[in-house]
């Protein structure tokens, strides 16, 4: 069946690289798959990774793959019950290449076992820089969750195992300075990068866009939450992972709602022997089970359960985090369809109970429960095309409560929810402030995709085009607290004040995306050319449904190319635009309440007090808020020797994201009426207010208005080096290094602490300085050395991982001296810039004040290192025993010294895991 339009589009995109007169040249690959004992393996799958080329072995173990594109490829051979084998090969332009493969009953008896991320592999169907972590490497990493597995990527610091707190992950990013004051309480560099790192689980993109579990910049009582960043990775246990593909570079146009890259997660499914995993360390206990079996020839069902508990500080506090996850996977092949269905359940409880003997009143608890139902259906269309339909519904119920004992002086207070003036009351003293955040998030996702393969102009072509629909909303009871015991810093909120807010009043987000992605490959005279180009259009709708008019749209062209002049040498490059939709909290922010005190008559006799307050309500919604737009670019070179597993990959990248959603302090003012009233001293009754007000003054305020005002730049170099195994000692060295630098910049002004502390309520001060927002920078050089010792006869792998923190540096770039101010704001909220040459004039003497709380000295930690050890040993009946020690030498780091900030490594964590199959595949 022919599809002329996509084919023409494919030709057009493929033409980006068709400057060379390449001929259609392809080869066949054949070979025999045997066990490590030399017996042929029937029904093993031989696949060229990243392609649809697949063949099964016959009873003699023989396979043949036809029309394989020339150049460097990965041959993946696998069969249930055996460890998969991945063989780097170089495919000639024509003829037949013979590649025999050996499958081991256990991966630990393979001579070339891979326990690290493969640095030169590619995600399936993707040409961008990626790290591929397969099942064996995941098992050897001994992680509790996916966050621990991702430490195999270059530039990712090692962290203690466990599920202690919310875990988010950001690709290609390092933290900048941590002062929330400098982002006005908005997200920091790591939050933005985590928010822009797309996690795709079993073909369905996860989303944290509708997470509203935050008390915002004015909240004083906080709850543990991932709001404002990426999803909580604790919900994905490591034992259920089959494969991870981390696309660090420019992803294809198939992937949207991201700025930093994509992490593709495939969970285990199919026929899986019943297997128990148990983990014990002094803080974390984990037990999980997985099993899958076939029903007839058309159905397989796989189930997985995981229970994990981490006690944060046993013996010190009773804090704990507990996780339950369950998954049911079903695959059916009715007719020409292949249907994959998943039911995922999770619950993550994080509890920090009160310790009344230590800190009275302080406690927090966050209970997240989720269910996700997803379906993927694939059906061949004609000879060379496949149609795929993906649909999922994801629901997360989050109940969080946090409380703290606050001490306040008696202040006037009102609980008005509407604008106006009313008599208030005085509250204060010591009280227990508590907030409840009850969110109920929904995420509906649908994608329809047509995948076509064809040959044209000497190229092997593949075109994928699709449509995506998303809708996200939050229907929970929301942000609740007893309004007479508010969890805020001040009562009379001239700095903005939150009232309880229902989340089900917040409108949904609807978005649509269209994409087309084309990949063309050809070879000439031993050189292989591979080009992938695509275009994506993301629409953020103004209304709550997909047929409403777009509020914002972004066209995202993306292109990657790879040229392999020789089988061991690849040159690569890519460029593309990406877009990330703003979170629900920024699109529909909570109203801000400003309460100004008109009358404050406070006496010792409570009956004689009088407080009159006027409430102003500001809706900070920004109707122009739209997508954050990123540009990603990278170039790289890869050298690989297929025979001895030697590989070197160097990638230089630059990712720039403009217009991420942040908070912009928008100056304004309130008019405060001032009243006369009768003196009621010693009468025991409040004074009488005399209407109308006799005078008025102005109170300047700042409204935190969401805006596309955050800009993130990440640039760096990543190096991965795998050296050949030193056979006499069965030793192998794997080195990963990354230099990364991040700049976070906020458009807008910084009004400093002086605004709130000495300007707002001081009517005698006519103006207050403002400064340009600083640039926050972070820089890190991280080298990770993995020394792997392998004893195939014993089924033993010892991995020593040394992580060298060669450089950690953060700095705020901006003026800190008294002449650094950029202008001033008047009491009417008017901004008046002051030219640089006039800032020293006597008339601006009152503006030349210290920029309190801002430091531009660099903060740098001394270079240091720590060591982790991982030992894996086979057990009888196919089991496996792991011993791990994080920071095995219990290195502490260093104290702060002149010119250097302190470095504090987490203490040693150690334990064991046992994996035990309970029977063979059924």
């Amino acid at each position, binding site marked *: 069946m022919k599809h002329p339009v996509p084919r023409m589009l494919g030709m057009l995109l493929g033409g980006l690289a068709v400057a060379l007169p390449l001929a259609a040249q392809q080869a066949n690959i054949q070979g025999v798959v045997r066990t490590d004992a030399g017996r042929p393996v029937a029904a093993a799958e031989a696949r060229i990774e990243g392609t649809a080329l697949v063949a099964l072995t016959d009873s003699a173990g023989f396979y043949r793959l036809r029309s394989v594109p020339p150049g460097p490829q990965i041959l993946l051979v696998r069969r249930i019950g055996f460890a998969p084998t991945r063989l780097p090969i170089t495919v000639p332009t024509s003829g037949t290449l013979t590649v025999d493969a050996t499958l081991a009953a256990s991966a630990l008896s393979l001579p070339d076992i891979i326990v690290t991320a493969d640095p030169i592999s590619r995600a399936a169907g993707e040409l961008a820089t990626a790290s591929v972590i397969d099942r064996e490497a995941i098992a050897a990493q001994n992680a509790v969750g996916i966050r621990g597995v991702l430490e195999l990527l270059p530039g990712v610091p090692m962290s203690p195992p466990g599920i202690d707190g919310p875990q988010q992950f950001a690709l290609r990013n390092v933290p900048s300075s941590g002062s929330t004051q400098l982002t006005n309480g908005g997200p920091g560099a790591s939050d933005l990068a985590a928010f822009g790192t797309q996690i795709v689980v079993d073909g369905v993109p996860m989303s944290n866009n509708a997470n509203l579990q935050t008390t915002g910049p004015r909240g004083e009582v906080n709850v543990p939450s991932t709001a404002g960043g990426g999803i909580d990775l604790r919900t994905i246990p490591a034992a259920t992972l089959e494969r991870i593909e981390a696309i660090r570079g420019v992803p294809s146009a198939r992937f949207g709602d991201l700025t930093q890259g994509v992490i593709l997660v495939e969970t285990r499914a199919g026929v899986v022997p019943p297997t128990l995993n148990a983990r014990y360390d*002094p803080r974390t206990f984990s037990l999980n089970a997985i099993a899958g079996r076939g029903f007839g020839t058309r159905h397989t069902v796989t189930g997985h359960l995981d229970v994990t508990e981490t006690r944060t500080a046993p*013996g010190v506090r009773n804090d704990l985090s507990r996780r339950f996850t369950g998954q049911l996977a079903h695959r059916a092949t009715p007719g020409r369809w292949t249907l994959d269905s998943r039911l995922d359940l999770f619950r993550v409880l994080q509890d920090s109970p009160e310790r009344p003997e230590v800190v009275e009143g302080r406690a927090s608890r966050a209970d997240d429960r989720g269910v996700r139902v997803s379906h993927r259906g694939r059906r061949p269309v004609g000879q060379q095309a496949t149609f795929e339909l993906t649909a999922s519904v994801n629901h997360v119920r989050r109940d969080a409560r946090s409380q703290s004992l606050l001490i306040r002086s008696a202040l006037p207070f009102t609980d008005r929810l509407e604008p106006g003036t009313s008599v208030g009351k005085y509250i204060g003293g010591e009280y227990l402030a508590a907030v409840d955040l009850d969110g109920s998030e929904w995420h509906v996702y649908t994608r329809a995709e047509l995948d076509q393969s064809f040959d044209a102009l000497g190229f092997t072509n593949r075109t994928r085009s699709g449509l995506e629909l998303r809708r996200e909303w939050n229907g929970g009871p929301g942000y609740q607290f007893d309004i007479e015991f508010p969890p805020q810093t001040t009562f009379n909120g001239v700095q903005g004040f939150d009232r309880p807010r229902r989340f089900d009043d917040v409108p949904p987000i609807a978005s649509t995306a269209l994409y087309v992605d084309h990949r063309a490959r050809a070879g000439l005279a031993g050189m292989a050319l591979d080009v992938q180009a695509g275009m994506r259009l993301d629409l953020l709708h103004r209304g709550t449904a997909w047929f409403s008019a777009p509020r914002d749209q972004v066209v995202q062209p993306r292109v990657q190319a790879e040229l392999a002049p020789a089988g061991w040498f690849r040159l690569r490059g890519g460029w593309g635009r990406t877009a990330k939709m703003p979170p629900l909290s920024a699109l529909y922010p909570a109203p801000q309440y400003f309460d100004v005190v008109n009358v404050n008559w406070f006496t010792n006799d409570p009956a004689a007090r009088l407080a009159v307050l006027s409430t102003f309500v500001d809706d900070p919604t920004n109707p122009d808020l739209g997508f954050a737009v990123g540009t990603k670019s990278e170039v790289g070179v890869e050298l690989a020797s297929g025979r001895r597993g030697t590989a070197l990959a160097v990638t230089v990248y630059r990712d720039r994201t403009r217009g991420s959603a942040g908070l912009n302090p928008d100056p304004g003012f309130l008019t405060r009426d001032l009243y006369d009233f009768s003196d009621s001293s010693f009468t025991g009754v409040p004074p009488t207010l005399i209407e109308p007000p006799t005078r008025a003054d102005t109170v300047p305020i700042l409204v935190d208005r969401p805006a596309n005002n955050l800009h993130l730049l990440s640039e760096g170099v990543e190096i991965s080096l795998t050296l050949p195994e030193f056979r006499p000692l069965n030793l192998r060295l794997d080195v990963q290094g990354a230099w990364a630098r991040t700049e976070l910049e906020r458009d807008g002004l910084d009004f400093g602490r002086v605004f709130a502390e000495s300007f707002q309520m001081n009517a005698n001060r006519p103006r207050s300085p403002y400064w340009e927002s600083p640039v926050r920078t972070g820089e890190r050089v991280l080298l990770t050395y993995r020394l792997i010792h392998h004893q195939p006869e*014993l089924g033993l792998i010892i991995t020593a991982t040394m992580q060298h923190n060669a450089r950690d540096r953060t700095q705020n770039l901006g003026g800190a001296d008294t002449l650094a101010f950029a202008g001033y704001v008047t009491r009417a909220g008017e901004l008046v810039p002051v030219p640089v040459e006039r800032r020293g004039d006597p008339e601006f003497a009152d503006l030349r004040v210290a920029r309190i709380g801002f430091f531009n000295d660099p903060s740098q930690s001394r270079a240091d290192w720590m060591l982790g050890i991982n030992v894996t040993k086979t057990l009888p009946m196919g089991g496996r025993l792991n011993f791990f*020690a994080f920071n095995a030498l219990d290195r502490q780091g260093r104290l702060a010294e002149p010119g250097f900030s302190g470095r504090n490594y987490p203490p040693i964590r150690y334990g064991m895991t046992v994996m035990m199959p309970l029977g063979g595949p059924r």
Partner: protein
Amino acid sequence: MRWCLCAVLPVTLVAQVRPAGSPLDPIAHLTIPIVNTVAIPRLFEPIVPVGLFHALGLAAGLVDDVERSRGSIRAHVGGEGGTFRRPFDPDDVSRRGAEAGGWRRLSARRAVWGRAAVQDAGFGNAGHATFTDPYGSSPLVIADTTAPRLRRAAALLEGMIGWRLGGARLGLGAGLDVREDATRDARFVRTARHANPALQVSLGHALPLGLQLVAIGRWSGASETAIFRTEPGSSRAYQFDGFDEPFPRDLAPPSAYLRRNQRDAYALGGALAGGLLGGRFVMGWSRTYRADRHFSLLVNDPPSDTWDADGWTGRAGYHRLILGVAMTLTLHADRLTGDVTRQDIDGVITRVRDTGMGLDLQARWQSARPAWDVGVSFGVDRRRRQVNDFLVRVASDLDVWYPRAAVAVAWTRGSTSFLLGAGVTGSGAYATLPNPTSMGPLYQTYVAPALSRDATRSITIGAMVGVRRRVTELLSFELTPTWQRTGVRGSPAPFGPDGAYTRWAIGAGVVVGR
């Protein structure tokens, strides 16, 4: 059997088939045990040759000493307690754990040995000391006035590999011993953690007359961190460094206090093995060095207290079959001299001289089938510790002797074997100790009872029973309860404890191999 191995039993893991001198064997660290060794012959274990690996724990000897593979997985529960103990010793201890290990010949040129263990221990009374082994050679001990309930989680991993390269031998070994302590239901919370990595390198060369000459290098590093959290309770901590009254540090809210000991120990030496008079002999000697650095904050502070010690250790063994009886003679001798310094005082404030030596003769006879297996052992250990505190100008000299004898009998019927063993060990001391009444109150509370206890004549009796069921030629199950009790013989020394201290354990496991 070295007494220092047994001494660490209450606080580390029960060692199964572990040769002395393996990577995690302490270097330059001699301690006085709470329960005296009762060396009941382990008849369920095979008779192993006296060689560089089995007798000295050197990886270079693996290829020569290991012919057959053997491995085991065992679980154990146990406990100990009693009144005949010192102020820093734990009491009311319950333990449970599992361990696996063994050796294996990989090829004609390679052999390996390894073990792994985990243990969970509960202390009803953890003693006043925070660091793990308060009665080692170093007098630097951090203690506080509480003796809380405590839970300890520990894990251990140790392995060696040896190569034969022509006439040369190369051995590499490494180990890691980690522990974490946390108080339970305590108002004054203290946590401690301990990481002890170790490396061993041995390089051998064949000499004429069947001799093997081996060079030995060992390193053992350790970091031990104690954190006192003062909320909600409070306590008073003392840093003992000898016999003087330590300066009290009041630990009260809201402050916390951290104490860390960073240790490096080295051993460099050589060994010789070969045949002699129809038997096999082995002897080894090493110079030992140890440096402890105690900090009150992070490690780049100047250390507040130091302990520097050097000495030597020597071991020898001889094995020969005489009239069908396997006779094994082992000897050991250790010497160590160490000095304590304090940041606020110039010069050495305390000097400790530790001497240890011992002899053990074990005879084992197996009948031909074998239906009977009989083992007897005799031995004596001597332990001498001389402490000279230059600050208070007080010295002590404690010279303790431990004579012992033990016998065990195993009988096999069909595929089942039964074992019965018993032994007795006495202790008697020649002691010159400071007069407690002329010392300070802290000395009387924490130091004098310990010295008096070690100087008290005591007797330890021990018993072991065992059942082994052989399932196949290479697979068997074992169950081995053991019991030991150390009690006062005569009357206790002034300030010393009275009564007895008992330890018991029940082990069960699977053994693969002969």
